[in-house]
C-alpha cells in the first residue's frame, strides 16, 4: 500500500469514481512506458508507480455504529424517521466511531443522523448522514442492519466535507458477541460477568491487571486509590499523557469500559488506612478476589487482616527495587500462608519493594536523607502484573469447568518469584545465565515456591493463645486494662 499522501488522495478519488460509476477528477490509467497503473488528476500524473494492493481498497473512511444501539432506537426511528447520533472523528475523518461505543472520545466530534429512507430530510447543520435503504439479503455485509422486526436495511453513509458530500463505508458492530469471540472457548465469560474484582492500588501493576481482567470479561470492579496520574507514571502506567492529572481510578475505569463496555466499575479515591476501614471492609466483603497492588506495607497488612477475617482470597503483587524482579503472593485464608506469615518467613523478600513514587520514597526516608524514586522499566513490571492477573483469573473460575482448571496443580504454590536480571548485591547475583542453564534457577522464569503457614501468626494463627500460653496466661481471663495514673 502506498504511503505517499498525494498518491493516496488520487487513488482514493479515482477508486471512489469507479465505485460510484461516475467520472471523477482522478482516474487510474495504464502507463505503457512505465508498464504500470498510475493515477492521473486533471493531466497531472503521480511521479512513481502506484503498486496498488488490496490494502488500498481500505482507504475509504469508515463509520462504525453499534447495531444494538440502533436496535434499541428502532421504534423511535420508525416513528420519527430520524435519530441523532454522534461520532468521534479519528485521523482527519478516516474513522468515525460512534461516540457511545466506548468511554474515550476523540478530540473531534461529528454530529450525525440515521435516516430511514432517502426521502427523509436531514436536520439543518447535520454533518454526517446514514441512510437506511430497505432491501434484501445478504445480511453478512457489515453495512447491513437487521431490524427487530426482521426487515433488512442497507446503509449508505455520507459526510459533508468542505461543502461536498463524500461517501463512507458503514459497518454495524455487535459488541458483546465480537468481544467474547476470542475468549469464549477458554473462559466462562458469563460467569466472569458476575464476578467482582476489588483492586487496591491502581499503579502500573494494578492498572494492567485491571485492564487484563476486563479483557477476560470480568464484569464488576471496585477500584481504590487516591493518587492522580503524573507525567512520571506515564512510561509505565496504562494511562497516557493526555490523562495526566486525572485520578488513576477514573483513568482505569475508562480503560476497563473501553475494553468491556458492560463492566460495572465503582471508584473509591481513598487511602488504605485504618481510618477508612469502614469503607474498605464492605468492598472486600462483596469481592470475589482482592488484588493488592499498593506500594506500602501498612496498607498490605491492613488488607491482609480484613481479607483473612472475611475469608477472601487476596493477591499481593510487587516489583523488587529498580524492578530487577518481582513477586506475587496468593493468600487463601487458613489454607495458605497469609501476608503476615510471609513477612515472618521471608523478611528480606517482603521488604524488597520498588520505590516507584514520591510517596513511597518519603515513607521510608528521613527528610535530611532523601530517598529517590527508582527507575524501573514497564516491561519488567508487566510479567508481575500478568501473573497477578492469571492468579486472579484462576480464583474467579475456580468453581467452574473452565479450561484453566488444568492449571490448578501448576499454580499450587502460594508464592511466585520472577527475576528480570541477576541484580548485583542480591542473593540472585550469582544465578547462572539463562542460556547456559536448564535445571538451575535463572532469570525470566516463574518459580512457584511453597512455604508453611505460621501457626502462631498474629493474623491467621493463634498468636495471642500461643504467646499467652508461653507466659502461663489464659486469654479467657483477660479483662480491662488499668486506667492511667492520675497526674500530680
Amino acid at each position, binding site marked *: 500500500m502506498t504511503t505517499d499522501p498525494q498518491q493516496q488522495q488520487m487513488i482514493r478519488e479515482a477508486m471512489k469514481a469507479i465505485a460510484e460509476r461516475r467520472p471523477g477528477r482522478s482516474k487510474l490509467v495504464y502507463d505503457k512506458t512505465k508498464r504500470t497503473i498510475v493515477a492521473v488528476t486533471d493531466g497531472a500524473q503521480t511521479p512513481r508507480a502506484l503498486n496498488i494492493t488490496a490494502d488500498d481498497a481500505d482507504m475509504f473512511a469508515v463509520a462504525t455504529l453499534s447495531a444494538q444501539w440502533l436496535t434499541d432506537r428502532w421504534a423511535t426511528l420508525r416513528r420519527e424517521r430520524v435519530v441523532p447520533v454522534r461520532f468521534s472523528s479519528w485521523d482527519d475523518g478516516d474513522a468515525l466511531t460512534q461516540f457511545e461505543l466506548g468511554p474515550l472520545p476523540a478530540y473531534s466530534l461529528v454530529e450525525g443522523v440515521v435516516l430511514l429512507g432517502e426521502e427523509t430530510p436531514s436536520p439543518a447543520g447535520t454533518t454526517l448522514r446514514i441512510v437506511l435503504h430497505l432491501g434484501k439479503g445478504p445480511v453478512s455485509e457489515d453495512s447491513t442492519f437487521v431490524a427487530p422486526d426482521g426487515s433488512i436495511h442497507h446503509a449508505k453513509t455520507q459526510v459533508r466535507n468542505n461543502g461536498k458530500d463524500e461517501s463512507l463505508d458503514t459497518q454495524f458492530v455487535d459488541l458483546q458477541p465480537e468481544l467474547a469471540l476470542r475468549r469464549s472457548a477458554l473462559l466462562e465469560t458469563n460467569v466472569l460477568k458476575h464476578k467482582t474484582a476489588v483492586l487496591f492500588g491502581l499503579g502500573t501493576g494494578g492498572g494492567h491487571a485491571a485492564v487484563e481482567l476486563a479483557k477476560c470479561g470480568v464484569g464488576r470492579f471496585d477500584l481504590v486509590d487516591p493518587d492522580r496520574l503524573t507525567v512520571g507514571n506515564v512510561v509505565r502506567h496504562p494511562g497516557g499523557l493526555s490523562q495526566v492529572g486525572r485520578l488513576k481510578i477514573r483513568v482505569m475505569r475508562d480503560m476497563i469500559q473501553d475494553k468491556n463496555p458492560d463492566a460495572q466499575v465503582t471508584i473509591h479515591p481513598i487511602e488504605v488506612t485504618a481510618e477508612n476501614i469502614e469503607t474498605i471492609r464492605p468492598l472486600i466483603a462483596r469481592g470475589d478476589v482482592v488484588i493488592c497492588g499498593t506500594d506500602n*506495607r501498612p496498607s498490605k497488612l491492613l488488607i491482609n487482616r480484613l481479607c483473612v477475617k472475611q475469608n477472601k482470597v487476596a493477591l499481593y503483587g510487587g516489583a523488587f527495587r529498580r524492578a530487577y524482579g518481582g513477586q506475587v503472593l496468593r493468600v487463601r485464608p487458613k489454607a495458605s500462608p497469609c501476608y503476615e506469615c510471609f513477612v515472618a518467613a521471608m523478611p528480606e523478600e517482603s521488604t524488597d519493594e520498588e520505590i516507584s513514587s514520591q510517596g513511597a520514597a518519603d515513607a521510608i526516608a528521613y527528610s*535530611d536523607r532523601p530517598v529517590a524514586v527508582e527507575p524501573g522499566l514497564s516491561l519488567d513490571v508487566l510479567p508481575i502484573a500478568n501473573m497477578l492477573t492469571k492468579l486472579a483469573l484462576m480464583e474467579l473460575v475456580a468453581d467452574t469447568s473452565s479450561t484453566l482448571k488444568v492449571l490448578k496443580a501448576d499454580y499450587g504454590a502460594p508464592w511466585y518469584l520472577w527475576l528480570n536480571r541477576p541484580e548485583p548485591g542480591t542473593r540472585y547475583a550469582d544465578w547462572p545465565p539463562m542460556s547456559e542453564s536448564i535445571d538451575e534457577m535463572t532469570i525470566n522464569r516463574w518459580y512457584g515456591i511453597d512455604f508453611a503457614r505460621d501457626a502462631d501468626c498474629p493474623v491467621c494463627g493463634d498468636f495471642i493463645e500461643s504467646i499467652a500460653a508461653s507466659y502461663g496466661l489464659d486469654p479467657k481471663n483477660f479483662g480491662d*486494662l488499668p486506667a492511667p495514673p492520675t497526674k500530680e
Partner: protein
Amino acid sequence: MWTSDQRNRLYLENEILHREGFTQFSVYWYKDTDTYEASGNTWSSSGKLYTLAIPIPSGFPQARPPMYITYPAPLYAANGTPISALGVSHDMHTLAPSSGQVQICHWRDNRWHSGILLHKVFLKGLIWIEAYEQHLATGRPLAEFVSTMKEYA
C-alpha cells in the same frame, strides 16, 4: 471501635511488659475516649528521668505505633537545638514530632509487622535514650551509637 482481638492483644502486651521486667511501663485504657496508650517513666544508666509514651493507633497491631519522649520537654540536642525542631532526622533517628514531642524512630513502616511486641518497642526506646546521652556527651550524631547498639537489641 476496637475489636476484641485488639483489646486482647493490648491486655497481653501489658502482661508481657511486666513479666519481661519492663515494670516501669504499662498499657492504659482511657475509658472516656476509649483509647489506649502504653507509657511510663524510666531512668537512663546515668540516672536521668525520661517519660516514653506510645499512643495506640486504631489500626494496631497492623499499624505501627509511634513512640514519643514526653519528658523532658523540650528535649535538646548537644548544640542546644530542640530535637523536635529537627523534624525527621537520620542523624538523630527521629520521625515527625507531635505537639513538640520528639518521636523516636523504632521500626520503619516498611519493616513493621504485627508480630512485634510493645516491649521490643520500649527496648528500642531505652536504647535511643542511652544513645542520646552519648550524643550529649560527645556531640556526635546519635545514629552512630544506635547502630552500634542495634546488634544487641
